């Protein structure tokens, strides 16, 4: 029995062009997000392709370091949320928890998922950030990589928290370990992005440079690491992966998934999805900025009513 490949016919057809892969002669593999017209938003097939490419890099003895980067204005705006990929059956008003759980466990949050492919890679992983690094790109790629190199004016964070809830950003073990608990909660509960400079000060970013120096700096760092003896690098990566396992940094944030699921009928999310469907995600984010705050379901009701 074959496992279903999720996605629309279009998104399945173009995934190979939307995620590029090449290996230089220095032992560095580059996974390049190439959907610039959508700020490299990740469709389901794009995430599946990244998972497969990381597995290919892991199996390649010539690859020592894997760099994640994006073409266009941004590194990545997160998951494509304006996409029907089979998450909802026609007769259902919203996606079922059953399908939502597959989305969460296999692709987003869980032990077998997309982010695990990065965080448990056998290679040293580097995220090269510019422009927006938002939502899933923040906590499923950047925060899962070993090193982050960022342009100073990057905008990094859980921008989705304002309409999908802050659980992933505030409660994920690895983000708390990387940023510290206060900063993790601030990124979740305010959805305010960090600049590259601030992310450096908080410990997420290893090197923060002007945008024009980003690519050469990342290439130099990746090359220097790749030049270390292979056995030594293998040992260090295995050492880190074991310790990260002990620290439970890969604990599935199932609570985040549940919070997202139960927020689906909330006024903010319904408004957001409706607007996104009409004018795109960018328009929905602009509309969200105009909103003064979360709707209070008790507003207008008399006490005790």
């Amino acid at each position: 029995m074959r496992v279903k490949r999720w996605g629309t016919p279009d998104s399945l057809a173009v995934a190979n062009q939307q995620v590029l892969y090449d290996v230089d002669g220095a032992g560095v593999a580059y996974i390049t997000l190439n959907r610039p017209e959508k700020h490299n938003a990740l469709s389901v097939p794009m995430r599946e392709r990244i998972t497969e490419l990381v597995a290919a890099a892991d199996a390649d003895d010539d690859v020592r370091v894997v760099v994640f980067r994006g073409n266009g204005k941004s590194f990545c705006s997160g998951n494509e949320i304006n996409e029907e990929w089979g998450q909802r059956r026609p007769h259902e008003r919203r996606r079922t928890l059953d399908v939502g759980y597959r989305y969460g466990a296999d692709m987003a949050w869980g032990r077998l998922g997309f982010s695990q492919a990065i965080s448990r890679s056998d290679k040293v992983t580097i995220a090269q950030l510019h422009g927006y690094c938002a939502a899933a790109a923040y906590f499923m790629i950047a925060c899962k990589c070993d090193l982050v190199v960022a342009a100073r004016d990057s905008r990094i964070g859980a921008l989705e928290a304002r309409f999908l809830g802050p659980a992933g950003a505030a409660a994920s073990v690895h983000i708390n370990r990387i940023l510290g608990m206060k900063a993790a909660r601030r990124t979740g509960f305010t959805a305010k992005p960090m600049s590259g400079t601030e992310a450096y000060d908080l410990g997420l970013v290893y090197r923060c440079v002007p945008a024009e120096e980003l690519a050469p700096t990342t290439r130099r760092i990746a090359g220097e690491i790749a030049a270390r003896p292979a056995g030594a690098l293998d040992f260090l990566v295995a050492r880190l992966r074991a310790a990260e396992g002990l620290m439970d940094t890969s604990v599935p944030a199932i609570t985040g998934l549940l919070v997202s699921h139960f927020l689906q009928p909330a006024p903010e999310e319904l408004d957001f999805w409706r607007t996104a469907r009409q004018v795109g995600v960018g328009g929905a984010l602009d509309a969200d900025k105009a909103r003064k705050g979360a709707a209070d379901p008790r507003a207008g009701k008399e006490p005790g009513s």
Partner: protein
Amino acid sequence: MIDVKVADWVGTVQVPDFAALTRYDAAFAWELRDTVVALADDSEVKVIVLRADGGDFAPDVPDASPPADRSATWRRVFAGAKGLYQSLAFCKKVVVTEVDGACRGAGSALVLCSDLTVAAETSSFGSPFMTTPEANFVLAALTMRLNRAKAWAVTGDVLDAVRAEEVGLVNQVVPGTALRAEVDALAARVTAMPLDGVTMSKMLLQAVLDAHGVGRDFDLATHYAARRRRAEETEAGPR
């Protein structure tokens, strides 16, 4: 080789340097371990200071390598629950490291196991994870935050004193001429705490560290050492 002095609630352990630990000198390590345990058991001691008077806290040992076999001595002295590093990390008294000059290999493992660190302006810190597989990465992640600890390990970066203070690896950076006086002053402040308060706090801290995975990372030292030996077999001397 190990000079010990107890005065005013402070037990000071003074050696030329701690590089002998990076060289896996078992006799030195066991004597140091016994000294730490004895001071911890001394009801006249609240603070243990680890001090090197040779200019460098722990200079680099370029050809350092863990013992080739899984010897009982290595397990007992370096990797075991009663070995040196766990005796320090789970010590029931406050441990202070006084770092001058180079701090490499096992020296950085000592810093990670200690409660407080004061460093001279000219000091510098290399990652211990290549030379010293018993070094505790979880302690590094809790001390410096996860990504900084990972970068320290995989890049081979040496942190100068200012950066070490910025990332939280050391508490205080002072001029080299003032180092000893500042450490003595810090130790004196800790001695103002009640003895049982210090001991109870350290016992509680042990449970907290274990909850975060510190003890489990120590438990895997044998596994890490085996991986490192395999790396050495892959190529002559992984550095």
